[in-house]
């Protein structure tokens, strides 16, 4: 069963809806045993970096999550703030990230003349850079919903799955072994999101 990690910072309800729509089953949990038994994990996230890391710490499941992901290689999908939290650090906060991938999170910086607003909010397209099961048989020119002011910079370029243009080309999704992460919200991206979640279920 897919277990959505519940640390009070995500839109777990929407994810559960989307998983159901895509033909899967899930539960929302912060229970150690349930996390340990999960066949797949989702780390959602809406909110600020330090608050997210703090809440995740407070659940007392970080050690078990670490074992599941790093040792057991359980597939995990990290979404939005979830993607940022698995990097080493973020310009948004002072606390260290989980460091599951060799990357850091930095803020968009634009000049007034560029006319680009922060947050990057709305629908944008992604360019697929490497094949991954998550984008298997995906529609042409998939578009997804983004809401974020910070973005992930991968030090291992091989981790990059898709990029998106917003003032610059940034990493909109990545994969390292069993770790999948999207900056966009598949659970809010209509048929494109359903397809992506369906692919995650089918993995």
């Amino acid at each position, binding site marked *: 069963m897919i277990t959505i990690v519940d640390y*009070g910072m995500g*839109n*777990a*309800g*929407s*994810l559960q*809806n*989307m998983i159901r*729509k895509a033909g899967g089953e899930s539960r929302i949990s912060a229970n150690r045993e349930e996390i340990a038994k999960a066949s797949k994990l989702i780390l959602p996230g*809406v*909110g*600020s970096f330090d*608050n997210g890391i703090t809440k995740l710490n407070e659940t007392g499941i970080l050690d078990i999550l670490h074992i599941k992901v790093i040792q057991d290689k359980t597939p995990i999908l990290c979404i939005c*703030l979830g993607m940022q939290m698995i990097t080493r650090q973020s310009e948004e906060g002072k606390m260290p990230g989980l460091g599951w991938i060799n990357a850091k999170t930095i803020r968009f910086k634009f000049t*007034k003349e560029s*006319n680009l*607003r*922060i*947050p*990057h*909010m*709305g*629908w*944008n*397209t992604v360019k697929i850079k490497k094949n991954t099961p998550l984008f298997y048989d995906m529609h042409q020119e998939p*578009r997804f*919903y983004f*809401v*974020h*002011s910070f973005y992930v910079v991968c030090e291992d370029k091989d981790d990059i799955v898709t990029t998106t*243009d*917003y003032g610059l080309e940034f990493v909109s999704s990545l994969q390292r072994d069993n770790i999948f992460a999207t900056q966009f*919200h598949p*659970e*809010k*991206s*209509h*048929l494109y*999101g*359903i397809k992506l979640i369906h692919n995650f279920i089918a993995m």
Partner: protein
Amino acid sequence: MLKTRVIPSLLIRNGGLIKTVRFKNARYVGDPINAIKVFNDKEVDELAVIDIDASRDNRGPDFKMLGRINKEAFMPLAYGGGVSTLEQVRKVLGLGYEKIIINSHAIQNRSFITEAANICGSQSVVVCIDVKKTVFGGYHVYDHLKKKVHKIVALDYACEVEKRGAGELLIYSVDRDGTFGGYDIALLKVITSGVSIPVVALGGAGNIKDFSAAVGEAGVSAVSAGSFFVFHGPHRAVLITYPDRNELENVLA
């Protein structure tokens, strides 16, 4: 390229979908869940749900209704109406809404914007500003509870809420609401030139060309409308619609 969002704004009263003209003459449009199903099928970019009586009645959000709405919506959702505590903010976002819209409570308690942004990030905090043109031609904040125009100048207020941590502004023209007469482009220009966060236009759209005017001439990041999506034809028959994707992309390209 970021696509311009086109956002239906749904006004709720007593659990029913309604629509106003210049913030008056509320007309019952139908069942909100039904409308949301239609909007979901049409793959709308985003939806804003606003409970217009929650603040007036001094009650919080109707979480049961919000939950029912979210079950049918696979698109980004924003909720506004009676949000005045951080607990309510958490609960709305926890239900699966991306954004909360703060209006009346932000006017009285501006630090609430910062507190909300601290727990959920600025990107989830939308401040809605109801704006009315005064007899002298200035744009002032309108108080929909007391039904009067504040002394606060809309641009000053917009700049302040940006500083306090709002991630987006919903600029709602009282004078254009429900009129189909087009957005107040001059008002939108004033606001977009003064702030750097995304501005969403609301009030007056009657035609999809109005969307391109708001984007092209006033520089808004997104456009919203109510009547445009729920009424059809000269007699304003109720019909929930959303323009074809290609049509929108042509107009907004």
